[in-house]
């Protein structure tokens, strides 16, 4: 198992380098604002632009730029400077990360805590009214665009603009260390919105997985042993049904850690997603490279963790 982990980590590093290279290439090849022009502002004279290019190292070949960039990260942990903000990228990202983590982790807890039981109940009571209603509702939430849902939730429940002002609205986010109570309150609506789609997906996933497992022979054996039905479902059934869920959960969380762009936008939460989208709009390559890198790290790590977890959950799976 250790050998497996080490090898996966090495592949992960290789993959990261590949990801950085591709991001570099994308911004180099596709038309976007030349960073030097961005810095020079309107009517930049050619002389000024050339000088800026030299300052920013843009006159080197793409390979040299890539090499310098990678070297800076690996040796100094320096992610470069944002062209637009003039701030160190590493600082910008680490500044935004807590908000995204708060949003993601809270939403994940919510969708697991709500989605799994709903899925179990739907599976047990399949084809009854409860099942139809919950799966129908799930279908609605799966189809609802996040941005639309966010606006609806704000128009209904935001304390400043909503019809039923219960919860703090857009822009009320404060850090956990600043004021834990306000931090929690400000995240209630965003958590609901961000987890809505996933709750629905996980409920359907659990329902399907559990239904499939409940038809397995070992469930019949469990009943034949005289186990109460509750134990059969929750211990024997869910133990098997949970495995695909873990795989999906790990990857979902990882991809959200790369930034829940739409939710952060509607609720004005200063997370990585917003940083990323603003940077793309400004053609701010270094920030985008930084966020892509960070997001990739999350996903690669999550993949490895999920694989390891899978091996623990299902003893039939073993890695050499």
């Amino acid at each position, binding site marked *: 198992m250790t050998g497996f982990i080490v090898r996966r980590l090495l592949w992960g590093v290789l993959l990261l380098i590949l990801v950085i290279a591709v991001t570099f290439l994308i911004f180099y090849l596709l*038309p*976007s*604002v*030349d960073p030097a*022009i961005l*810095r*020079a*502002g*309107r*009517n*930049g*004279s*050619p002389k*000024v632009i050339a*000088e*800026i290019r*030299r*300052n*920013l190292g843009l006159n080197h070949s793409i390979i040299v730029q890539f090499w310098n960039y990678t070297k800076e990260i690996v040796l100094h942990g320096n992610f470069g*400077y*944002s062209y*637009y*903000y*003039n*701030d160190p990228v590493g600082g*910008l990202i680490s*500044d*935004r990360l807590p908000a995204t983590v708060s949003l993601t982790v809270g939403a994940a807890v919510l969708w697991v805590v709500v989605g799994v039981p709903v899925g179990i109940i739907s599976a047990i009571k399949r*084809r009854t009214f409860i099942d*139809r209603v919950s*799966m*129908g*509702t799930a*279908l*609605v939430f799966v*189809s*609802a665009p996040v*941005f*639309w849902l966010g*606006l*609806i939730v*704000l*128009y209904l429940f935001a304390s*400043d*603009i909503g019809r039923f002002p219960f919860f703090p*609205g*857009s*822009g009320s986010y404060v850090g956990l260390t600043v004021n834990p109570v306000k931090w929690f309150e400000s995240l209630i609506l965003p958590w609901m919105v961000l987890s809505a789609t996933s709750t629905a997906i996980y409920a359907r996933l659990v329902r399907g997985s559990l239904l499939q497992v409940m038809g397995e022979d070992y469930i019949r054996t469990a009943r034949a042993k005289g186990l109460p039905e509750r134990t059969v479902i929750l211990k024997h059934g869910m133990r098997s049904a949970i495995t695909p869920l873990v795989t999906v959960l790990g990857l979902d969380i990882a991809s959200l850690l790369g930034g829940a762009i739409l939710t952060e*936008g*509607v*609720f*004005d939460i*200063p997370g990585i997603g*917003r*940083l990323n989208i*603003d940077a793309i*709009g400004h*053609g701010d390559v270094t920030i985008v490279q930084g966020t892509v890198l960070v997001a990739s790290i999350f996903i690669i790590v999550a993949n490895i963790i999920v694989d390891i977890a899978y091996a623990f959950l299902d003893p039939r799976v073993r890695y050499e």
Partner: protein
Amino acid sequence: MTTPIRRRAIVALAALFAAAAALFAFASSQSTTPANGAGLKPALTGAGQNLTNGKRGGVLTAYDSEDFEHLDPGEAYFSLDYEIMYATQMPLFEYLPNNTTVATPMLASGQPVVTDGGKTVTVHIKPNVHFSPPVNRAVTSADVAYAIERCANPNVANAYFQPYFGNIVGAAKATGGPIAGITTPNSTTIVFKLISPSADLLIGALSLPISMPVPKEYAAPLDAKKPTQYGTSSEVFTGPYMLKSDATGKFLGLGYQPGKSATLVRNPNWNPKTDPQPAYLNQININIGGASQVIGLQVLKGSDALQNDTPTNANVQLAYQKYYNQLTAVPGAGDHYVSLNNHQGPFANVNIRRAAYAALDRAALVKIAGGSIVGTVGTHFITPGSAGYTQAGGDAGPKYPWNEYPNGNLAVAQKYMKAAGYPSGKYTGNAVVKIVEANNGNSPEEGAVVKNAFASIGLNAKLILVDQSVLYAKYCGVPAAEVDACPSVGWIRDFADPQTILQVPFWGKAITPTNNSNWGQVNDPQINAAIVKATNVVGASARAAAWAKIDDMLVQKAVAIPWIFDKQPNIESANVRGISDLWDVGEWDYAYTSLKNP
């Protein structure tokens, strides 16, 4: 067992439709567009702002969904940046919020003195304006000199330096060090020596943030960094407010958190006796980010807030219906026009251009953009509130047949097609006319109107929709892309002098292979000569007349089709008495804004 699945899907779809219908009904209960111009009450026009009877105190909240670009006076040019710059620094001159033509002395102690046939400009400054901590000392003329000189430093790289200050003796070769043509005989006097008599242009430029003083001993080490850290992490201030900073003057992380917030607090060293600005508010909290629709509602329903972005059309309509006193539409926010390729293709022929001009339904474009609240039909290129507007024909514009019909007139158009050599009144050539527009917002609809106009005179027009980010970078700003028309190019003036509106978009010498702002590649010898001559005219009214003549020429030759004089709609909360700067596309002015009940 397909029936249960299908039934479930239908139930879910029905639920979704019901929800959507409910939302639609809810949203459209804020209904229709207002009448076109008739019945607009005076409050909406933004005129007649009373600047001096506000109440002191209180904290204002401002919402920007976009972030600032530069907070260094030597680099700022974005109108949002100006809001901060003009509230926290003292330029030599500045326009009052309700004046767009005459600049008031701010740091300067009086009007500039022009001598030597317009080649020397002398400015005196007030002696008791101080920098904020940690510099603290009084501002001297050397600080103004350094502020201008550092703009030539590549680490600062100010875009205005070349066009407006390039004519100072020794400026062409400057790289950040002292400039021969800028001298400071004493601590309150600064003298500019010009190569040719462009004094009026220079004086106009002295109202830009470039003239805001910068202390060399504090800023030079920061300016040595690539890029400069002055205005990025640290800065000192001379205005009534400052970005909240620590003891060393560092505001990054305190008064400015990129992408998140900015905080303006009172400048302890500000001397109100030196400044006509009342500075009523105690603090301004600026929130960066969020969705514009939501912000608009928060502002309209809230109490102490204002929105810095252009509100969404839906919120403008909502404000017009329900929060009338919280809505202003400020004229003079710039103009938009359809650029036509003067260099090649069918539009190289002046009569075809005139025909297209006559055929276009400009009023329809204004309606698509949001109606009379957001602007009036464009009839020439100098914008309302700038010098030369009235001389160039005012609202109706120069009297030429193709300019007489805001809704378009096919008969007139056909007349000019015939003059172009097409007896049928329709184009019969083979060329394909490429129209390039952005693919978001109102742009595709606007593009379609333009395409129809071209088609009505027989042109084989193709409308290409592209992402906003590449519209200029790859198409309209690149001559080699051979684009025939860009329907939504526009310009905002830098200051009241009409040269800042007309020179770059219409001068042959301003054409560049990339990042080109002379989108139509206008290179007419007559116009070029007139422009060169007008840059050297001295005296405000003479300049206004000279540039108005050029404006007339532009319309006469139909180099482009102006279609809107923009108005900037602004919304504020009920308790806010917002004052906006007419000279800065209607941006809010923090130094004059107050709360009704602080």
